[in-house]
């Protein structure tokens, strides 16, 4: 039996100041992704039909580069938060849960950086 009070158990585990941050950012990124994803589909349209120079020129336009980087940052942030909740709900072994969330987050940061770097490299082609 554990006779400690809930307060005693919570002490030392850090403050609750960031408690709503995860929930809140999930919504903020979701709202941003609605218009961004609709725009993003035009990129898929280019991949399907446009010639190589057309796609490169389109993606290199400042507005399109910025929107694509914005989409990349928002989507990886959003997906990272979402997958974290999925892992936390279904993985019940504490260490595996923590390590899985870390791996997903680190992998997503890396993927986002790779994607942004690709945008810069495509921009240099024009």
């Amino acid at each position, binding site marked *: 039996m554990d006779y400690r009070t809930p307060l005693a158990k919570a002490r030392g585990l850090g403050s609750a100041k960031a408690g709503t941050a995860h929930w809140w950012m999930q*919504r903020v990124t*979701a*709202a941003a*992704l*609605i218009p961004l*994803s609709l725009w993003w*589909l*035009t990129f*898929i*349209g280019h*991949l*399907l*039909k446009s010639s*190589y120079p057309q*796609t*490169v020129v389109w*993606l290199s336009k400042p507005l399109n580069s910025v929107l694509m980087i914005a989409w990349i940052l928002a*989507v*990886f942030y959003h*997906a990272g938060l*979402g*997958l974290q909740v*999925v892992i936390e709900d279904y993985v019940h072994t504490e260490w595996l849960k923590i390590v899985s969330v870390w791996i997903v987050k680190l992998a*997503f940061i890396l*993927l986002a950086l*790779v*994607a942004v770097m*690709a*945008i810069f*490299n*495509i921009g240099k082609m024009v």
Partner: protein
Amino acid sequence: MDQQKKIRPLSPHLQVYKLPLNAVASIVHRITGVILSIGLLLFVGGLLTVSVGEDAYITLQNLMNHALGTLILWLFIYALFFHLCHGVRHLIWDAGSGFEREHMDRNVYIELIASVILTVASFFLL
């Protein structure tokens, strides 16, 4: 203690209930979220392919226009639109409305129809 835990009877779990339509939409929202996260890997791959050069780009374009590629692409886009439509409903819930019991099923049909319309419209626009 642990032994006692094992033989303790469990209350009826998820599988004995008939899930309301809204609950099905909820789990599909989560599943599409995970699927779309996997799709992000393909997106980064696609972007890298564009940054590599014209030959790689043409290979990618052929893959995407191949029957199987087209099917996979449009399943992803349907997943995107379902996730987007159900996500909008989450944002409406978060704003404090849309909880009327008699509208729950109707709202699921609205998001299903909206996601199909958006997918079909994109298919013809892209």
